[in-house]
């Protein structure tokens, strides 16, 4: 019976498993959930174990930044257009860095992956099947981790580092609320809802990101160990 459930999860995933010698670990969660810190710790550990490690970050390239800025200025960036531009950025990262890394046999630690895009696009009301189908070019991670924190915790952590919330981060393009903080809460709440749904559908591993750093790392290493090649 568990096998049957597993098959169901597989068929609902929009992503296709890879056959490269490397391993792909994707970290997902709200800003300030501690993904980067944990990935760095994983990197040190894996390198000490003799693996080649590649950390990738999904940030807006210079190329699309101008378009995003223009959309922000005009205040009319269409959610579908935004999603396509982000997909273009991700496609470049995927084809140029992630896949070659996996081909070399590296352990690729992705600081945000497809699920981030899906969660944000869904939260912006973009057609689900359309965008899911677009991201089918991406390989399925061997391990996907969802760093769970609340919108308020995310907000506290972001604001302790940066004085201001970013336009798209706070979902201001959606016109949810004039107050950036309120808009952020509402938008992130939607994203959490989408992450929760995907965590079930795509078998993402949930991690309580409010636990002490060391404890989280121990939990992660145990999970990573299971999917390492050659053991």
């Amino acid at each position, binding site marked *: 019976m568990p096998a049957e459930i597993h098959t169901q999860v597989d068929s609902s995933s929009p992503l296709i498993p890879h056959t490269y010698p490397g391993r792909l670990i994707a970290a997902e969660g709200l800003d300030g959930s501690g993904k980067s810190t944990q990935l760095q710790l994983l990197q040190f550990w894996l390198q000490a174990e003799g693996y080649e490690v590649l950390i990738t970050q999904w940030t807006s390239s210079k*190329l699309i930044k101008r378009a995003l800025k223009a959309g922000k200025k005009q205040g009319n960036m269409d959610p579908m257009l935004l999603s396509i531009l982000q*997909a273009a950025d991700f496609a470049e990262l995927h084809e140029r860095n992630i896949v070659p890394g996996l081909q070399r046999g590296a352990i690729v630690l992705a600081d945000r992956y497809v699920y981030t895009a899906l969660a944000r696009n869904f939260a912006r009301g973009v057609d689900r099947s*359309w965008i899911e189908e677009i991201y089918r070019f991406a390989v399925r991670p061997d391990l996907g981790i969802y760093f769970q924190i609340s919108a308020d915790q995310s907000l506290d952590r972001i604001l302790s580092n940066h004085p201001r919330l970013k336009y798209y981060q706070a979902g201001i393009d959606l016109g949810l609320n004039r107050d950036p903080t309120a808009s952020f809460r509402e938008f992130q709440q939607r994203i959490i809802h989408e992450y929760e749904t995907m965590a079930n559908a795509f078998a993402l591993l949930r991690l309580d990101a409010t636990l002490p750093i060391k404890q989280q790392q121990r939990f992660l290493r145990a999970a990573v160990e299971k999917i390492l090649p050659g053991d």
Partner: protein
Amino acid sequence: MASDLFQVSENTAFAKPMLHPEQPKLIVLEGIDLSGRTTQVQLLHDWLAAQNYHVTTTAWRTSPLISDLLARARTGPPLQPLTYSLLFCADHMDRTQRVIKPALERGEIVLADRYTYTAFARDAARGLDPTWVRNLYHFSVQPDVVFYLHISPEEAVKRRLALQQQRQNTAGVETENPGKTAQDAQERKQHKPKPKEQAQPALATTVQLSGEALESFRNFEKRMYSEYQQMQKEFGFSVIEGDRSIDHVQAMLRRAITQLLLNIG
């Protein structure tokens, strides 16, 4: 009213097209490079405008937001085929929302110089999954008619060389920014491993093509041609022989468009 209508119907189709004034139509011209699309779109525009139709033209890679981005992408290291595919889709999406849909809602005739089929052909020629590409464009407005200006890949090569010769003769000096061209060629060489990337033709420029570059242009047009031939049935293109004179092609287009606007055929 009735007498007006009667009078109109007595006239030739060309005389009073205002019979159906507020009738939005999306008319697409497709075809491989140098098939004459742009010239024909321009002539159709003038013809329709002269008859008091409100006409909007839109061309591939002209969205203010994205065309700039695509231009800048060309100066950097070449992007992956997948990335280009998504950026061209962004261009089409932006024009769909800002140009095509608003014009149709105003009841205008929209003439599109290239449409989604260009993306279908190019992306397939570059090795992307056709089903994936078709899904990508599913937000697009369904055209009322797609004219496929049919020329052979050999004809495209012939026209390309003739154009080159003509520019050379008139300009005397090749002022086409040779430094950039050489740089482009070098970049392409450096990124050799992917055969898909080699086949990007220098569109609408007068960059000298010879030897390997000409061969690459020919091969790319061949691939595009075979994609268009396959799509012809899938999407029910209206085929117009593009190797006839400009006037002849224009006359064929006008006849078909007149029928479309009068709702016959």
